[in-house]
């Protein structure tokens, strides 16, 4: 891959690289709905350090696709290009129930400190303020998958119409669509779930894992120009801060070249704030 002309990288590319690095070679990976950034990350891993990954690209159930571009809707047939075999959707879910799905990527309109995700509703069941689209397969696959990577392109504090500070990373989600490491009552282990839950969180500000004791999100790396204070100001709970917090390793020029070739329509940029996308990072 030629790297001529690759002079800088942007936040979407940095996140895609961070997300790709959560994939090990040979891992079995699936993502279904609303997934431009995960598709970019998975295809990047596939073309760099994880050539033996087993990748089901979307709800089309095509295995190891090699699409000429990534589509804005993950049900598009471009994700069958180069795929072989094309199987049945249920085979992916069966594979997940067998414990053979190593990793999947989930985001959330709300993400809490234990890694619980909300994609169902804002408000409460009896008083729904915003009806979100729903969790697709994440409620159940989140129980079975080896691990999942949480990602968010809106790690920020916003001011609501009523003047309240509103977070994506909240202390407690309004509704647990996908279980993280625990509810207020019980841990994942106590429930005897077969999947390991979230092990990494990649946001537009930094990357996290989870404190082994408290299961609370723990800051590991900061993206260029982001401080621990920025993280705290944009997070609705007090994250654990690892005593070895470092800067997020930058992508290589080659990785960025691969990303731009994989995703010429730049679907990976959707959902980011305009300001975030405008920042150009030097290598």
């Amino acid at each position, binding site marked *: 891959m030629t790297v001529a002309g690759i002079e800088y990288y942007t936040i979407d590319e940095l996140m895609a690289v961070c997300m790709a690095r959560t994939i090990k070679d040979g891992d079995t990976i699936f993502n279904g709905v609303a997934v431009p950034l995960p598709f970019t990350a998975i295809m990047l891993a596939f073309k760099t350090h994880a050539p033996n990954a087993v990748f089901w690209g979307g709800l089309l159930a095509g295995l190891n696709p090699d699409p000429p571009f990534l589509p804005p809707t993950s049900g598009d047939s471009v994700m069958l290009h180069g795929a072989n075999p094309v199987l049945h959707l249920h085979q992916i879910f069966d594979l997940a129930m067998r414990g053979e799905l190593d990793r999947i990527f989930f985001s959330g309109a709300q993400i809490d400190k234990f890694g619980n995700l909300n994609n169902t509703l804002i408000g409460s069941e009896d008083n*729904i303020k915003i009806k979100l*689209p729903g969790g697709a397969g994440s409620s159940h696959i989140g129980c079975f998958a080896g691990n999942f990577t949480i990602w968010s392109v809106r790690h920020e504090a916003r001011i609501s119409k009523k003047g309240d500070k509103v977070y994506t990373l909240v202390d407690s989600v309004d509704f647990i669509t996908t279980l993280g490491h625990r509810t207020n009552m019980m841990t994942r282990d106590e429930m005897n779930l077969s999947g390991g839950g979230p092990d990494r969180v990649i946001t537009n500000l930094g990357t996290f894992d989870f404190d082994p004791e408290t299961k609370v999100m723990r800051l590991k790396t900061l993206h260029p120009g982001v401080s621990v204070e920025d993280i705290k100001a944009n997070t609705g709970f007090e994250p654990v801060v690892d005593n070895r917090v470092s800067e997020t390793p930058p992508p290589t020029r080659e990785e960025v070249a691969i990303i731009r070739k994989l995703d010429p329509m730049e679907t990976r940029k959707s959902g980011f704030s305009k300001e975030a996308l405008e920042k150009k990072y030097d290598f």
Partner: protein
Amino acid sequence: MGIHSSREKLCSLTEAVSRIENGSIVAVGGNLSAREPMAIIREMIRQGKRDMHSIGGAHGVDIDLLCAGGVLKKVQNSYVGFEADFGLAPNYRRMVQEKKVIPLDTDCVAVLVQLRASVFGLPFMPMKLVSGTDILKLHPEYVTMSCPYTGEKVTLVPAVRPDWAIIHAHKSDPRGNVKLYPPYFADLLAVEASKNSIISVEEIVSEEEMNEIGATIPYYEVTAVVELPYGAHPTSCYPDYTYDRVHLSEYVSLGNRGEEVFKNEYLGKFVYGVKDHEEYLELVGGEKRLGELKKWNESDETWQRLLKEEVSAG
């Protein structure tokens, strides 16, 4: 399920849809923006169907339009929206928030397992243990059970047997032997699990041609077949045509402007404003626009261009 042994399945859209009873459980084919039975859905709205209950996975404009048209009372889907592309489903969201539609949010895996129970003739099915989510609060019918052999805990879910599956496919012969090209999504499961099914197709072919190419859905699972070219519009029906992103962006934009605007400018025009599918096709641009959508396979550039088009912000 349900054996439809008759070998004469051709039907008009009006007649086929008239057979769906109000209050039915309906499994809709396709997903997201792909191969959804939109022409059948528009006819269901025109016929004033009510109080229906959808069951399915990740969907978009189909479920949103069924809500807007007053057809759906309960939505038991795992996802209804337009992904990162156009965001929330405007009518579904509004009507749930206004308590006009009851959301029974579920999960793709639960839908699979519950439809499978029906296919397997069973009143329930176990699935791998799920726990800890509030989805379970919406579904008090889920039961935990210990395996009598290993003690492993599993979750039981009841069978769901849709009254109707509505599907858009590529070809059928007059018997109702249907050819569906991949991706299948959950369509084969939906048809097999449902008591009845209406299948709209791009093209009716002869029995001889169907025997040559080999059917995907056996005729005995099919109640009625309707020939409706572009019957999935504005969603895609690959390899025939890609989705009409201009139309969908207009749809979402009108939906976001509220009930009145959507009713007047979308439903009034594209659903109630036409007497049949042919008029609809003319209204959305006729052969000129529809022919464009078929050009996705001319080159990767054309394909990308079609997936980028949307109505201008004005």
